[in-house]
């Protein structure tokens, strides 16, 4: 079975005025189906840049990106958009729920966009909100929700199109520990159901939930190690216990 996502010598150089700012410098990364990869590194090491490129939100400078065996770095902006509808779910640090839409509509939107019929989209929304314990908040506006609730909604939204790859950029970066725990439990739940996840984080404890830890420094991978299954489970239990 081929990798869900694979990069070959991926490079991103921002142009800050006349000054070139290399953010990602030759990253080779391969993520297998069902894997949960945590990306760590100090601030400015290029984590966000990398994950944005994986989802096509930012164009690469050079190198290759493959998604489900298809080369995608050469795609146009709109071809990327069409691809995102079907294959990618994004979770951001600041939730980014559409402010004018209700929680329910926020979740339903990606499903509709992915081509689900209104009825199917509705069903997905119900089941996701139920799984996230948010059924009674479906009619609320995002601003009425706490940060943790908003991030859970954002997660539901990212999963609504049943993506083959879930990308999360510091999903717990803006949450207190209680909410962090809730969101992490959800992430590990969907991971157990076979969801492939790439998650950027600052927090070692959050990263310990993953199967595999990739460390970035100055735009290069300096460490790529599998975390022992056992530890994962323990970590999960520890978190569950908190």
């Amino acid at each position, binding site marked *: 079975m081929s990798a869900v996502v694979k990069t070959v010598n991926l490079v991103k150089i921002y142009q800050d005025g006349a000054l070139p700012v290399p953010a990602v410098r030759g990253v080779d990364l391969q993520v297998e189906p069902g894997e949960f990869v945590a990306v760590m590194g100090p601030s400015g090491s290029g984590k966000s840049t990398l994950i944005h490129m994986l989802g096509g939100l930012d164009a690469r400078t050079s190198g290759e990106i493959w998604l489900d065996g298809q080369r995608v770095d050469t795609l146009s902006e709109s071809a990327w958009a069409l691809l995102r509808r*079907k294959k990618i779910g994004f979770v951001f640090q600041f939730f*980014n729920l*559409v402010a*004018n839409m209700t929680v329910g509509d926020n979740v*339903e939107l990606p499903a509709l966009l992915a081509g689900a019929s209104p009825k199917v989209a509705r069903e997905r929304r119900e089941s996701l909100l139920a799984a996230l314990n948010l059924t009674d908040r479906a009619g609320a506006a995002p601003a009425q929700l706490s940060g943790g609730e908003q991030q859970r909604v954002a997660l539901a939204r990212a999963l609504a199109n049943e993506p083959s790859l879930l990308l999360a950029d510091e999903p717990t970066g803006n949450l207190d520990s209680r909410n962090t725990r809730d969101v992490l439990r959800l992430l590990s739940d969907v991971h157990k159901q076979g969801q492939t996840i790439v998650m950027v984080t600052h927090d070692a404890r959050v990263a310990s939930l993953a199967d595999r830890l990739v460390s970035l420094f100055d735009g290069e991978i300096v460490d790529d190690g599998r975390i022992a299954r056992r530890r994962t489970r323990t970590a999960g239990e520890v978190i569950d216990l908190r």
Partner: protein
Amino acid sequence: MSTALAGSRWIKADLRARKGQALLTVLAVAGIVAALITAATLLEDGTNPWRSLSAQTDGAHVWLYTKDSPQVALGGIDGVTQTAGPYRSAPVTVAQDGKKEPAALRAMPATPPAVAHPLVAEGRWLDPSRPDGVVVERSFADSLGIGIGAPFTIIALSGERHTLYVRGIAHTAEQGFYPEWTPGLAYVLPVMLDRIEPMLGRSEWVTGLRLADPEASQVVSQRVVVMLEDRLQRVYTWREVRSAMELDNRLLGTLLGLFGVVGLVAAALALANAAGGRVLGQLRDLATLKSMGFTRGQIALLLLVEHGALGLLGVAIGALAGWGVMAAVLGASSVAPIPVLAIIVGTALVVLAAVGVPALRGGRTPPIPDVPTGPPRGHLSRLARLALLVRLPPALVLGTRDAFTRRVPAFLTAFGLAVPMMMITIGLGVWATLDNFLAHPEQVGQHAALYVKPDKLEPVVAERLAGQDRDVAEVYPGTDVNALAPGEARSVRVRAIGSSTRPYPFPVVEGRMYARQGEAVAGQGLLDLLGVKIGDRVRLTVGGTPLIVRVVGRTVEPEQDGEVLSVGLDSLAAKDSVPPEYYALALKPGADPAEVRGRLLAGSGEGLDVQAAVNPADRLSIIRIVIVALIAVLALIGLANLLTASALGLRDHAFDLAVLKAMGLTPRQVMATLVTGTGLLVVLGVGVGAAAGVSVVTGLIDLQGHTSGVGAGIGRAPSPLTLTVAVLVAVGAALAVALIPARRAARAQVPVATR
């Protein structure tokens, strides 16, 4: 399909979140479109009643008045297909409710003629079994306020009274509407006219000529002038009738058109501003949508549909309203479909273009929603530095800084307020001009407030009676005659009043007043008609006698489309000027014309006919209603701009509010900061708009005056007081509107990490 569904969800949600602004947008656009359609319809020929009246009555194209029944074969003139008449016509006075109106009593057969047959609108045509029946022309009947069966008392030249009964009310295309066109017209059977006015010498004969080609009316009337020579009293063509009927429509149409076109620009700006501001406020949401899989084109389309739909809804409502009003007022058939369609398509394109630019920009949003989309910051504008220098409170400094951080929206806001304010100032100027007509009638040629006709009394007695009244300052004898302009083959009005050495004080705005016999002053319409300038010689014939005068000045002339030549009585041949037809009475300041009239009537034992002059402003009072409506629409546009500006200001500040509060600003100061930001733009826009309005308003009104024949020199700017009040109200209302959201924001608990 799936995108359309997802997109429509988003649009619905967004519209729900900004109902007020959306409603304003729709109303503003609707108002403008309605104004444009009304303007086009009024300016379009279709509203001119002449066309359909002429078709319905098989109207004649040339009308001529002779002293006796014409003995030449007028029907034989090249191009003449049929003739109407000659009919005998006698001048009479209609006495109705104490008023006396001049009328021409026309003898017509019981069987209506084939050409120029009056169109009976109510009641029936004349019937030989009821010889005391009279059919009255529609506008004359309306002006008299009489209906079918009403008594119709007429006073013949001999002073004898006759009572007829209104049998029918009819339309005709042979003359303009009363009272713009005098005398009024009424038809009786020939036997009745013989009884009322047995003296053939006191009547005229009227003949209408129907032409194969209406455009040939000029040539034909020239032939008539040559053939009839001095037996011809006057001649006019369908063109004069048509322009007499359109007088008020044109003025209103021009006003509405001007306001509509400029208003459309303002509305387009407001739309672009609203859409742009909204897009700016939603960059994060748009980025999020993109990260979910909306493409750049789809986002642009989404925005175009959302904001465009509001505009198009406005266009639709406005079109319906405009069409509805016109159809109700003028009848459905008078609304020409082509210009209305053109306006709908044109405004729709303007709407789409206005929202297209921000929509495209919205589509280009990068899909990474975490990039901060706050305002460009970090520098204090020069204005803000100035504010700091003069030690303004911190809130004002911050507000001043904010006013200009976003250049384009700041410009759009100020400009978007300036344009409506300019138009409002112009509207107020028109209002002031009308007020000036009323306050200073002498500036529009109405120095005399009353006109006295000797009626039953000897002219000398009438003059003495009028001169003896304590409130009468001056008595000017006068006579109005029709003169033929030979080159033009049509009649113009010559008003002989006062004497050349003691002239009636016409409002001469160019050149000088006449000072001796053989000099004259004229209205703009006459100068244009005859193609003469001040200083030129004009040759006319009055009842066969040549009248040669030099035009030495131009007066403001609100009558007869300005096609009036004014001279001293001594410039006219004695046969035309003695005795004078009327006496114009200039009253002493503060005298009440109605009171003087009552006294004169009583003093003469009802022997005098005393009429009050009709101020042109009274006829134009509908303009005031139009101005009020237009100001309302313009205020809506300004309001829409303002909401955008304050929403944008708030959004830019959402991030700063917590910081401002942490810095120690009280809610009140935070509010002041927010309001200063928009308030500065408001003051700038309103000030510039009012200044621009004041600088163009007199010129614009004079231009309209020039084209309508009245002539330049009537325009007035709104008074400083009115203008100050208008500016204060605009700024005050704007600040009040900006205050509400600012207050809410300042009060709200702002979490430190809003993003």
